[in-house]
């Protein structure tokens, strides 16, 4: 076993060395921190060059059997990825390793992102039929399978490894064939099953305020935020979703919480999922639907209905790369303009975007607040990078979370019920079925002001269009202003949104260390913009907007404020890197 382990280690090290020379490659692989004799586990430490801190704990563990898992688990930080060879978790092996119950089943790995892959049998099948390959060769080849999986996961070119194998096993063609087959099988497994890239985030360099912490990735934080919103509003939560990488994880996460009053439905498609969330919203529930790009296309019509009905609803888009199917496991921010404009007719709604994994909690909570308070669908834009990155997150105290009053309507004696009357915020009453005296009908046809009856009247349509827009625009009065991290004399503002916050902060930090004077800010509200946005933009000579798209936020800012913001566009399916930000800043000084 040790032999197998060290062969793999060689391979990894070799690969690491080779790849470290590739200019654009973000990850580095080091030799294992230490393996115990008799245990074929190996550790690989990936760390972005940008954020390399010596002595970091490993954040990926590939455990080929229970013993390996047991030996190494204690070194792993929470939120790390654990890939196990499921086949090796037999009763016998578990006993040998001293496990009383199977750690894969008993919840003891709940702090980690576990991928169970039957590597032994998959490798055996891959190697099947290769002439002269012995069972032993096949057995060993599973490490190459694992290497294949990792190569896929971290998106490395495979030719380097293959060449290395060819050299290494030049004199043993059967072994070569077996290893190649296993490696390819592992790689294909990653691609075919849309195995998700994981990204590691460094803790912010600032001092950590006192409090209780845990590690969360964006998906977990979203799920917690939604449940918290449900508790603090008293509205039972329904998530209706159709599986799609990478948004499926939220469905998986929430589906485990039936005992907390969370209902999840795997709908027949994304249209149905949106419809179910809206139907639940009509019934006075917290209706949520989550998807990724292609699914958003399909939800557009239903979201438009929610705009017309003026009912609360949350739509989560975990953005992924590319038009059409694109690159499902890669990250991007290219759904912003679709979120804002991707429906026919004038159908405005709020759009918000968290910028850190932990921030997903607050964003989900805020999405519910806005939805409930303004009776409107809200789109929350996450992305692949956010969803799967982890960071330490300060656990909020429940009583400190604001409580939300759904303020359901109830009948007032002698008063006619007007489903489209409005409060100060221009929000209409939420009168849920079951409330005596408020039976009413709503629909997607244009509604007469106040009564909500069908109306084709010209002036009414103009008025309703205005009201719907004004209601959303009015949110700007209640959201926090854009907060700028500036220095005296800064003339350049780096303005980002979404998951680029970490990279922007780090890049700005380094630029400052290099002597540049520069400001930065991150937008969490994409529609409406914070009220001070125009002032902020006008107070700098230059504004740089880095985005993982072709300049979508930039377009909105330019149109609205007529400021000649500059774009740094990265459309590679990869997050923005701090080094890139630093470079872009330097270039502008």
């Amino acid at each position, binding site marked *: 076993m040790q032999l197998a382990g060290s062969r793999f280690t060689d391979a990894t090290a070799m690969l690491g060395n080779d790849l470290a020379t590739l200019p654009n490659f973000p990850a580095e692989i080091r030799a294992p921190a230490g393996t115990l004799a008799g245990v074929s586990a190996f550790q690989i430490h990936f760390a972005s060059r940008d954020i390399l801190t010596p002595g970091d704990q490993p954040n990926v563990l590939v455990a080929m059997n229970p013993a390996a898992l047991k030996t190494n688990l204690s070194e792993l930080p929470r939120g790390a990825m654990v890939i196990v060879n499921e086949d090796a978790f037999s009763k016998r092996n578990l006993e040998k390793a001293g496990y009383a119950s199977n750690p894969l089943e008993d919840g003891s790995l709940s*702090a980690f992102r576990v991928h169970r892959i039957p590597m032994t049998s998959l490798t055996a099948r891959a190697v099947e039929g290769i002439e002269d390959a012995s069972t032993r060769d096949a057995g060993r080849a599973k490490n190459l399978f694992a290497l294949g999986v990792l190569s896929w996961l971290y998106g490395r070119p495979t030719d380097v490894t293959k060449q290395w194998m060819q050299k290494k096993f030049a004199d043993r063609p059967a072994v070569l064939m077996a290893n190649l087959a296993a490696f390819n099988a592992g790689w294909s497994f990653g691609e075919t099953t849309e195995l998700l890239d994981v990204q590691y985030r460094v803790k912010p360099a600032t001092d950590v305020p006192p409090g209780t912490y845990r590690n969360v990735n964006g998906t977990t934080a979203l799920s917690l935020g939604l449940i918290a919103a449900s508790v603090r509003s008293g509205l*039972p939560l329904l998530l209706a979703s159709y599986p799609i990488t990478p948004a499926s994880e939220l469905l998986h996460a929430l589906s485990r919480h039936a005992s907390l009053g969370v209902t999840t*439905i795997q709908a027949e498609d994304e249209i149905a999922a949106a419809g179910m969330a809206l*139907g*639940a919203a009509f019934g006075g529930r917290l209706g949520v639907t989550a998807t990724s790009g292609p699914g958003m296309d399909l939800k557009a019509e239903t979201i438009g*209905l929610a705009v017309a009905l003026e009912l609360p609803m949350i739509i989560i888009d975990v953005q992924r790369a590319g038009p059409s199917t694109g690159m499902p496991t890669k990250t991007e921010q290219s759904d912003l303009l679709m979120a804002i404009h991707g429906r026919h007719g004038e159908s405005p709604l709020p759009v918000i975007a968290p910028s850190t994994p932990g921030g997903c909690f607050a964003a989900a909570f805020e999405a519910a607040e806005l939805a409930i308070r303004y009776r409107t669908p809200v789109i929350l834009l996450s992305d692949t990078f956010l969803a799967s990155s982890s960071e330490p997150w300060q656990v909020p105290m429940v009583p400190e979370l604001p409580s939300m009053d759904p303020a359901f309507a109830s009948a007032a004696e002698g008063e006619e019920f007007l489903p489209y009357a409005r409060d100060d915020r221009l929000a209409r009453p939420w009168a849920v079925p079951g409330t005596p005296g408020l039976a009413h009908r709503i629909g997607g046809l244009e509604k007469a002001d106040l009564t909500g009856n069908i109306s084709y009247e010209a002036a009414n349509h103009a008025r309703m269009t205005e009201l719907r827009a004004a209601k959303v625009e009015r949110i700007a009065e209640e959201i926090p202003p854009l907060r700028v991290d500036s220095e005296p004399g800064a003339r350049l503002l780096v303005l980002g949104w979404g998951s680029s916050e970490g990279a922007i902060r780090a890049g700005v930090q380094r630029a400052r260390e290099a002597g540049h004077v520069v400001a930065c800010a991150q937008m969490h509200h994409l529609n409406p913009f914070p009220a001070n946005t125009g002032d902020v933009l006008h107070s700098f000579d230059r504004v740089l907007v880095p985005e993982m798209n072709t300049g979508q936020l930039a377009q909105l800012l330019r149109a609205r404020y007529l400021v000649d913001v500059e774009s740094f566009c990265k459309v590679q399916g990869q997050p923005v890197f701090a080094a890139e930000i630093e470079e872009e800043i330097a270039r502008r000084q």
Partner: protein
Amino acid sequence: MSAVVTGNGNGDGGGAPVLTKADFQSDQETRWCPGCGDYAVLAAVQQFMPELGIPPEKIVFITGIGCAGRFAYYMNTYGMHGIHGRAPALATGLASTRDDLSIWVVTGDGDSLSIGGNHLIHALRRNVPIKILLFNNQIYGLTKGQASPTSELGKVTKSTPFGVADHPFNPVSLALGAEATFVARTIDRDKRHLSEVLRAAATHEGAALVEIYQNCPVFNDGAFAALTEKETKDANQIRLVAGEPVRFGVDNERGVARAADGHLAIVDVADVGADALIVHDPHRLDPGLAFSLARLADNPTVPTPIGIFRDVQRPVYGRSLPTRTAPATEVELAELLLGSDSWTVG
């Protein structure tokens, strides 16, 4: 006149004041064409509703787009006029989170079988506790006369000037193929039959599909004349009655029997004897016979079965899992947020 309707989110109505048809009439002017079959269905539904013993505010009508979709506006209950084809999805979301409501979907043949086909079949297989009234006029009414998925072959419509080339769906057999637990067919003009079927649908726990043949006098007048007109209806209505042999005709002279090759066939009772007729049993789990009955007529211009094809029990969607409707308590939330691996700083 107050059958007890139990289960299935239909409330108990115990102690509620007695309701009348008028309680279910909204203040909106009905806007169908004069003579439209929709009026008759509306009247029958409004008249039937009090029987449920459920107060109007506990009843919800969710409709799609089409003439039929206007139904929601005319019921003095909660109502949502959704978007085209998606009413079953909207209703599923509501039904799986509000088991205290009685939820009805009204849809047209285009709404439910063309654009909404997928939601329909999934709501049926899931056995979502909703009652789906499918107004089948074999045409697109609202959009002024295009073919629908139930339009007969060869029919000339606005979108098919050379005749429909698509073989039509038979909504009953589609529903049976989609695992529906309750499937029935009735006719706008036959208020009594319609009401009986509504009653059975309401009593059914789970999804009920009721196909209602509905005349569209403007774009497809007389499509169901064979089943509705005095002169022809006795000869063409094959009424399915649970526990009874399947028999019909002006003098009950015809019936349905199984032919030697195993298929159902329409026979003269005189030829085969009354004992040879099949006896209808909608409660059989095996939908095979119901399916065969559905296939007796391709188009309602020939003898066509009406009534309840299938009515069986199966776990109701959202009711089989241990559900909890209330959100977590603050203590539970605090525990959840903390997780199992937190640490404290400072």
